[in-house]
């Protein structure tokens, strides 16, 4: 096969009928019997393969496919709608959770131990140089606590001191 023939044949394969051929290819076919033979053979093969277009599916097959796709797409859309709602709410929810966490953490770190003064009214004002009076109170948390000591109470409440086995407000001599 000559080089020119090979090139022509590669161009011929895309044409269906002789009337579709450009002028130069038509001239070549009339000049070259081998190319003409190739042309008729390739058209015959193409025509036979083309018969496959008559193999058609039954209508039910296509209907089945489409309804399956529609069903799946409806489900996807429904889940996307919920997903969208969740995505919209998620930043606010996330911020809320973070704020709550920070709040709880700071309350845990900075809040005093659960000590409460009872008889708070007596803790209020007692004039200096008047009749000294002892302020009586007790610790609300009565569980044994090795850290709980008079010194610890004084650290937390500097105006209270422990003298003679009793707590006393500073400036109030017994």
């Amino acid at each position, binding site marked *: 096969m000559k080089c020119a023939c090979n090139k022509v*044949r*590669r*161009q011929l*394969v*895309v044409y269906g009928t002789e009337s579709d051929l450009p002028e130069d290819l038509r001239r070549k076919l009339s000049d070259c019997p081998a190319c003409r033979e190739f042309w008729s*053979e*390739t058209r*015959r*093969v*193409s*025509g*036979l*393969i*083309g*018969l*496959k*277009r*008559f*193999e*058609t*599916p*039954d209508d039910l*097959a*296509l209907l*089945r*496919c*489409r309804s*399956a*796709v*529609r069903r*799946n*797409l*409806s489900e*996807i*859309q429904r889940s996307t709608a919920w997903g969208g709602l969740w995505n919209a709410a998620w930043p606010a929810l996330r911020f809320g959770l973070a704020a709550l966490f920070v709040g709880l953490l700071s309350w845990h770190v900075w809040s005093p131990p659960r000590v409460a003064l009872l008889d708070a009214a007596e803790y209020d004002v007692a004039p200096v140089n008047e009749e000294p009076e002892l302020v009586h109170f007790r610790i609300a948390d009565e569980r044994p606590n090795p850290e709980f000591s008079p010194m610890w109470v004084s650290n937390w409440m500097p105006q209270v001191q422990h003298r003679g086995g009793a707590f006393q407000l500073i400036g109030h001599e017994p």
Partner: protein
Amino acid sequence: MRQAQTGNLEAYDELMRRHQLKIYGLIYNMTGNRHDTEDLLQEVFLKGFKVIKRFRGKSSFYTWIYRIALNRTINFLKKRKSRAALSLNEMDIALESDPSFLEWRSRQTPVRDAALSELQEKLNSALQTLSEKHRAVVVLHDVQGVPHEEIAKMLNCSAGTVRSRLFYARQLLQAELAEYAR
């Protein structure tokens, strides 16, 4: 098209209805198995809906969905190591008025009077002997009548490559179908 891009299922259903037969034909002729074809057709349309927002209209919808169908089918065929048994559709009655069919019938001799079903099976097995790329070109060009420039766009290659593949595939098919094509 635009309505389908906004997620309108009715609009997308209309697109499916318009193109389903051609895409079915493409997948069916690539796989040679109608059960695989039904599964793949569903996958292609589902995939199409998921990515339709990305479709920018540089090519026609038909070229775009064909490309999805081709890629999906070629990937499927690569994963399917061994060739599946052929599972064929019925031939349409319109076949009997086709010039190629009439020519083939006229060349039949009493000795070599092949039944239509035999021809159908032979055509399908001949097609399955081609590689996926060559088969895609033959199916698109000879079965579906897609112009070779359009095929080049679908396959992301040059028109020259399409012509070469078609030339080579026809040589192979000619050898496979020797007794039918002479």
